[in-house]
């Protein structure tokens, strides 16, 4: 039996109470929401907090409201998001991403805020303490002089951003509210992420993600996920796409985001080049080729990295074709299966 280390446990009654407990707890205090990422990390000693602040009884952190703008409190379970008819109708990218996170059993406890803050992953890091010790600890510790087993000559961590909901919500233009004892601040979701596998979030340790807001602009959106099995697995690649078509199919806004190919969700800069154009075959293929260049998968998760890169191009193209209204049965094999699996399961 792998047991978590020792820690103190505080049950927060309100968000303000949780913020105060976090601030008083110092750098080794952690929030416990669903716990489906934190508890395994504690069992494997990737995280050794000395205080857990439980949010289980903080009712104000749960709930979804879709009234023009969509607001989702960060403690809402992923299952509640999957079952929300409003989210499914208005934000298909989020519905599809949430539907494909882990397994139904995990989605019953895991929260949206937790998935946005899910730790980065690496084949050399997501192992037991003894396994990591036996090959020599990597630069994520717990000793200070480790090396990166993926890129041994470098001094940075290349662990992979592994959230499914983050690319979808960034594509949808979501903003995030962070609360601490000092007050609240509001940031675009993409600014939550630093391009650093070992320290993937820009938020301070004493800040709590309290809510996620998605603007009401009418967009078409989707999320495509690559993983070995149809359930449980973290993404080996995620492609989120949201476009706002205007008259005659001319694109008025576009945000395309790649997940699991870098240490942060990657908002493709060329998304802007789609504005003012229509999604012809040429436009889609040119965009997919350019956008896929940003995908720099490393040999630290499932599947061969060169193949994942080639799938990025295929998924980028497939996601845009889907948003254009194409029949998925005309897609190449893997794209077809992915699109049909989305449709078969979730439509």
């Amino acid at each position: 039996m792998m047991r978590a280390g020792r820690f103190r446990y505080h049950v927060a009654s309100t968000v303000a109470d949780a913020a105060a407990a976090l601030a008083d707890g110092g750098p080794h205090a952690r929030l416990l929401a669903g716990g489906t990422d934190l508890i395994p990390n504690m069992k494997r000693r990737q995280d050794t907090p000395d205080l857990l602040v439980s949010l289980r009884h903080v009712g104000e952190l749960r709930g979804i409201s879709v009234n023009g703008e969509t607001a989702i409190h960060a403690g809402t379970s992923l299952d509640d998001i999957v079952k929300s008819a409003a989210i499914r109708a208005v934000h298909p990218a989020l519905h599809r991403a949430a539907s494909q996170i882990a397994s139904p059993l995990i989605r019953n406890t895991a929260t949206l805020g937790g998935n946005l803050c899910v730790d980065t992953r690496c084949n050399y890091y997501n192992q037991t303490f003894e396994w990591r010790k036996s090959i020599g600890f990597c630069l994520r510790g717990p000793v200070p002089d480790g090396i990166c087993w993926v890129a041994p000559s470098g001094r940075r961590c290349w662990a992979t951003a592994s959230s499914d909901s983050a690319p979808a919500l960034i594509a949808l233009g979501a903003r995030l509210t962070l609360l601490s004892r000092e007050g609240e601040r509001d940031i675009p979701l993409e600014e939550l992420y630093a391009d650093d596998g070992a320290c993937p979030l820009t938020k301070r340790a004493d800040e709590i993600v309290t809510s996620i807001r998605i603007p009401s602009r009418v967009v078409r959106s989707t999320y495509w996920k690559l993983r070995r099995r149809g359930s449980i697995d973290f993404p080996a690649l995620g492609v989120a796409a949201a476009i706002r078509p205007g008259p005659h199919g001319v694109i008025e806004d576009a945000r395309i985001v790649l997940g699991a190919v870098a240490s942060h969700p990657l908002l493709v800069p060329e998304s802007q080049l789609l504005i003012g154009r229509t999604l012809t075959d040429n436009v889609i293929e040119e965009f997919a080729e350019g956008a896929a260049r940003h995908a720099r998968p490393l040999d630290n998760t499932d599947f061969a990295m060169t193949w994942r890169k080639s799938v990025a191009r295929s998924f980028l193209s497939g996601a845009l074709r889907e948003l254009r209204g194409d029949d998925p049965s005309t897609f190449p094999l893997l794209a077809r299966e992915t699109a049909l699996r989305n449709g078969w399961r979730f439509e």
Partner: protein
Amino acid sequence: MDKVRLALRVNGEPVDLAIAPNRTLLEVLREDLALTGTKHGCELGECGACAVLLDTRPVLSCLVLALECEGADVVTVEGLAQDARLDPLQEAFSDCGATQCGYCTPGFLITAKALLDERPQATRAEIAEALSGNLCRCTGYIQIFEAVEQAARRISDE
């Protein structure tokens, strides 16, 4: 590590005990309450063997701290049978050969129980989706899906 008092209901019975904060619900069920029907599989949320109902929702007891269950209602596989009568799901699993080595079976039963309580007429696709976090290395799943369908028919016939 100071122990903390925990009060909850397990299979309808009130339980009151003092535990260290790092104990998971799975550990407390198996080690303190001797309810060893709930299985200890991967310990990391990847296999489904430890599923229990927590306030009617199926969750992985290996990832839930026991203290998080204060005041909650927990149902384990031992709580499915009513007196001497097996749950229709248990009967159907037996009749359909939906269990071989049996290690995954309690997790499947609990997860399927939650599904049929919520959707008594669940389709094959809904059954497959609901059970997609439970791994079975013996049966190939088909007998499990058939057993859940048979249990659903029996429940609706009653």
